[in-house]
């Protein structure tokens, strides 16, 4: 047996659960999960790694779309496999009977409970929706395809 250096897999999972606070943290109201939301952004917006929080700037607008987007269904606990911690929403994110006439190509996942802090931006081919439904189907929740993975 020999020692091997590594970031511990359990630590990666616990980061997703907010267990560790190596830097200054926030006072949490309890042990419940935070509310995660998803908002859609115009193709002309500039979201990316530098995005720190939800903003209405560049967000889509149209019939039956509310600013701030939709709440993400989160029945999945962060999990680990093969040294990777991962998490995926437990259901699709969708909007019904919306009209989004200006091309959009990005979704921002953000933490509504923690001052709307940004989590991740996903892009896709530019789209419009006309009196119809828009849905984001989530990938398989595992270490290979999960929506957010800490390697």
């Amino acid at each position: 047996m020999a020692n091997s250096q590594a970031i511990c897999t359990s630590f990666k999972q616990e980061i997703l659960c907010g267990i560790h606070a190596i830097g200054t943290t926030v006072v949490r109201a309890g042990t419940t999960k935070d509310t995660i939301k998803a908002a859609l952004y115009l193709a002309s917006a500039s979201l990316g790694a530098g995005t720190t929080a939800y903003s209405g700037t560049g967000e889509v607008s149209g019939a039956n779309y509310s600013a701030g987007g939709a709440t993400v269904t989160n029945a999945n606990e962060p999990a680990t496999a093969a040294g990777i911690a991962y998490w995926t929403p437990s259901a699709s994110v969708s909007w019904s009977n919306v009209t989004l006439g200006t091309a959009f190509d990005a979704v921002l996942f953000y933490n509504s409970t923690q001052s709307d802090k940004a989590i991740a931006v996903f892009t896709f081919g530019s789209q419009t929706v006309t009196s119809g439904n828009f849905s984001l189907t989530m990938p398989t929740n595992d270490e290979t395809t999960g929506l957010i993975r800490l390697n």
Partner: protein
Amino acid sequence: MLVQTTKGLIERDQLIIKDIVSEEDNSRITATEWYLGDELVRRDVNVNVLRGLDLFPEASM
């Protein structure tokens, strides 16, 4: 069956349906367009996210 459109509810039989499927690096997009004659009266989109993001992508290479 009635379908909600920009013209209100219209019988599905009166509409022409066109599916457009496109592949991106990380997603497969299906757009369904509904036409009344030549006019687009409804467009639905599903983005199927095939793979999420790695926090440290170089670690998986």
